[in-house]
């Protein structure tokens, strides 16, 4: 497997596969973005000592999603494709 990972052809295919997987995951999550932001915001609220300190959901949503969604998709791909490839 290690040798295969060093093969240029395999690396190219892996890059393509990763891009496609990211696209698929982001597309699947797209309709649920607002629900995700709302639920995470709600989960964070009890952590904050000053109740008003956390941004309102409307302000929290955009920056959170912009950062979290790509990272989430990337994590999923890493958890599946890359880790499983390495294990095989």
């Amino acid at each position, binding site marked *: 497997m290690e040798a295969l990972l060093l093969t240029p052809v395999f690396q190219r295919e892996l890059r393509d596969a990763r891009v496609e997987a990211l696209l698929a995951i982001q597309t*699947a999550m797209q309709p649920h973005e607002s*629900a995700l932001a709302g639920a995470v915001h709600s989960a964070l609220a*009890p*952590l904050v000592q000053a109740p008003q300190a*956390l941004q309102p959901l409307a302000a929290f949503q955009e920056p959170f999603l912009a950062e979290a969604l790509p990272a989430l998709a990337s994590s999923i791909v890493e958890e599946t494709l890359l880790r499983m490839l390495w294990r095989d």
Partner: protein
Amino acid sequence: MIPPPAPEHLNTRAHPASLPPEAAPSLLDASEHVAAASDSHDSSLQSASRRLLMERPSGGRADAGLAVDPTPEATLVAEAFRPQAEQLLAELAAAGLRLTANAAQQQAALAAIQAAVKAVAAEAVSDTRRQMAALAAELRPADPSPAGQSLLWRGAQCGWACRLQRLQRRDPPSQLTVGWRAAHLTRRLPGDPAAACTALQAAVNSRPYHQQQLTLSATAPFRPALQPWRHSCSPRFSSAS
């Protein structure tokens, strides 16, 4: 080799809520494989997050979210999100937000965030399954032969559940590579790619609802055969190539 789907699974047009568990066998198989793999995965991260999910306090919005079809894929997504959740907490603290110093409460909040992500992911998985079932049903009349159905069904399986399924087949590396790259499906499965492309094109043109899904499908298994007409089909289609 991916086992071909049974034709009756392509017949369903039922609403996903009413779909029997066997309506999309490949995906359910994938779920089982993922579950098996997750169970055997001794990563401390996964076991820690699993513990957290089990030990989290009851009540709250995240608990309500968990009631939504907690599929193995959704669990995987929630586990994968843990680093981001931890980073989010760290960033909030770095930004000067006074967070509780109680470690147990922080862990409970992390678990709640994961539960929230899990609920959202479960809905996304459900949506993906629904779209794939609808797409398979939509495309079926174009090529009713078993080989054509099989090819189209594979083409429709471009959600991440499908990718997980291929991953979990645990082929030797060389075959895993081939299997994971859906582009190779046209070589490995019997069938007529041209007929499949015709059906896909017809579906794209007649059902805007499916465009997004077809975009994903067409970027992989049918890419070579779609080349001649892809750029004239739709902006979305072209931009995905």
